């Protein structure tokens, strides 16, 4: 009883992750998962649920609170012929592991003249959800310029499933980013096993007046903004980046070339951010394009509900940015 080729099933985001991990664990006996509380506990967001029972404590490894070592051990294991996924609970703590990730894993293939490479996925969770200044940051832009490192950040269960599987088949390190607010979301995922290729953005919605670009959780306010703008007669083309490095420049330029206007949206800081990079590339390819960007206010993200909301972009701010850009209002 095989499923229709494009049949789908409904999964929660965290279930899509469990499924991708389970399939890849079965496919590749060398793959080990390492992280804090990912064993019998099933992961902070149950995104590792059941894997410990299925694959045992040799392949699903709880680790001490030692982020530097977690990524270093993962990199060494991967470089020695294995494959590792290391879970860094929150992206803020990735700062503790940038030395092994950036100085070692991302450069390994280059510096050894191709003798070694590190098939390592560092999986982490970004974004604000009431946990305060050191548990809320989005620093993916830092990683987008690291030669040898790829970066993905899905916004749907299907992409989480498909991108994670692709990431787990890469030769070099990949940073895979979830968002705290995505885990409880549900969505349609293909019934049959499949991958989503890295480096390909998705046009989430076609439109003619302006191109809206986002990734991860920001797709939710972006799509809400597009709905509202529709009612005001503004037709938005919405692009979900999915992969941040390498950027799908061609798709972005093609869309912006059609619409003539670009608004980038990110939850992290704007300065040297995702939007700055996209805008530069689009400007080069589409001279005269109008561009605006929406991102965090330049402040830390407090656990304070009022101030957290004041920092993080929402549909209102996106709508306002689009209107300002299109109507030329200051």
């Amino acid at each position: 009883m095989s499923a229709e080729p494009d049949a789908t099933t409904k999964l929660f985001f965290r279930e899509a992750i469990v499924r991708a991990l389970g399939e890849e664990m079965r496919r590749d006996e060398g793959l080990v998962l390492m992280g804090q509380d990912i064993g019998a506990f099933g992961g902070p967001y149950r995104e590792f649920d059941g894997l410990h029972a299925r694959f045992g404590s040799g392949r699903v490894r709880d680790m001490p609170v030692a982020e530097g070592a977690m990524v270093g051990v993962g990199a060494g294991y991967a470089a020695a012929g294995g494959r590792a996924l290391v879970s860094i609970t929150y992206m803020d703590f990735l700062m503790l592991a940038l030395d092994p990730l950036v100085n070692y894993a991302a450069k390994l293939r280059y510096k050894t003249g191709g003798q070694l490479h590190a098939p390592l996925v560092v999986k982490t969770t970004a974004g604000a959800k009431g946990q305060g200044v050191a548990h809320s940051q989005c620093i993916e832009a830092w990683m987008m310029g690291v030669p040898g490192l790829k970066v993905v950040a899905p916004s749907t269960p299907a992409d989480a499933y498909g991108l994670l599987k692709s990431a787990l088949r890469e030769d070099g390190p990949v940073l895979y980013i979830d968002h705290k607010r995505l885990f409880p979301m549900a969505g349609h995922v293909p019934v049959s096993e499949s991958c989503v290729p890295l480096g390909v953005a998705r046009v989430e919605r076609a439109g003619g007046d302006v191109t809206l670009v986002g990734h991860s959780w920001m797709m939710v306010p972006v799509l809400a903004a597009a709905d509202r703008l529709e009612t005001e007669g503004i037709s938005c083309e919405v692009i979900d980046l999915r992969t941040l490095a390498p950027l799908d420049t061609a798709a972005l330029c093609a869309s912006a070339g059609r619409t003539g206007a670009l608004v980038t949206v990110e939850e992290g800081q704007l300065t040297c951010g995702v939007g700055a990079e996209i805008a530069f590339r689009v400007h080069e390819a589409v001279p005269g394009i109008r561009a605006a960007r929406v991102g965090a206010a330049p402040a830390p993200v407090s656990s304070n509900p009022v101030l957290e909301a004041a920092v993080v972009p929402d549909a209102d701010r996106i709508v306002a940015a689009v209107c300002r850009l299109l109507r030329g209002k200051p």
Partner: protein
Amino acid sequence: MTLPDPALLRSMMLIRAFEASLMARKDHGFQLLSSGQEAVSVGLCAALEPDDQLLCSGRSIGPALARRLDPNRVLAELLGKEAGYCSGRGGRGHMAAPARGFFGAHAVVGGNLTVAAGVALRLQGEGRSSLVACMFGDGACGSGALHETLNIAAIWRLPLLLVCDNNQYSVSTPRAAALAPARLSDLAAPFGIRGMTVDGMDVQAVRDAAQALAATVRAGGGPAFLECLSYGFTAHSTSSRESRPRDEVAAARDRCPIRGYTEVLMRSGVVDRTQVAEMTREIDIVVAAANRFADDAAFPSPADVLLNVG
């Protein structure tokens, strides 16, 4: 060994009642509680002087109240109100009141260790006999920051009292599965740092050990390491699943530090049942007032989001 002290009991009871009232609120948000582990904060703070500084992990409610912060402002801070110590910006993870000897919490596991060494360096330079105490969990002992801190504190003989509140778990991970040393205080030995391990459910044991170690630290003997074997009565956080064996939790509840110390005090005739009841009533009033204070306090204005950034 010092005498039984009803102030220790009151302090522990305040933490317990305060957290119970917090949990009874719908708006409590994401919290890490100290219930069950009160003896560690309270025993330690009994050994601290006003000019000392205390730092801790994100499990900050016990330490903050044990350090005699105003419960009104602590609760306001936890709930994000402008009247909180950090104007509602820090919350539990970053609660601070340095003017009251509470340099503060930091929610990065192990992240406050090196900072505490820096604060100790400053106090040392000022030539006073003050010390810095830094509380952290067993989980933090897996992090390299502890090693770097031990080494630097030892070579510079910093006035630093490291206090490991070993509640046996880092989220779901049992301490024994995450950490190789037989006793976590053994980690101090290679650096020539004095280490002790005590029953963290016994407030008097904690206080006596903290006082003994604090005395050597104040005397210029360099850093010391105190491990307190404790156990939390609730799951890791208010949004975590409980994963610890039920009978293990029950057994820990049987070793309740508040009940235990109440018995000690009554047995030694320092307090009687009436006085304990009176204390309970007084604490209820304090806690109720804190809740009213926090309720009446305002949230910050979103317009102030850029205040104090740089």
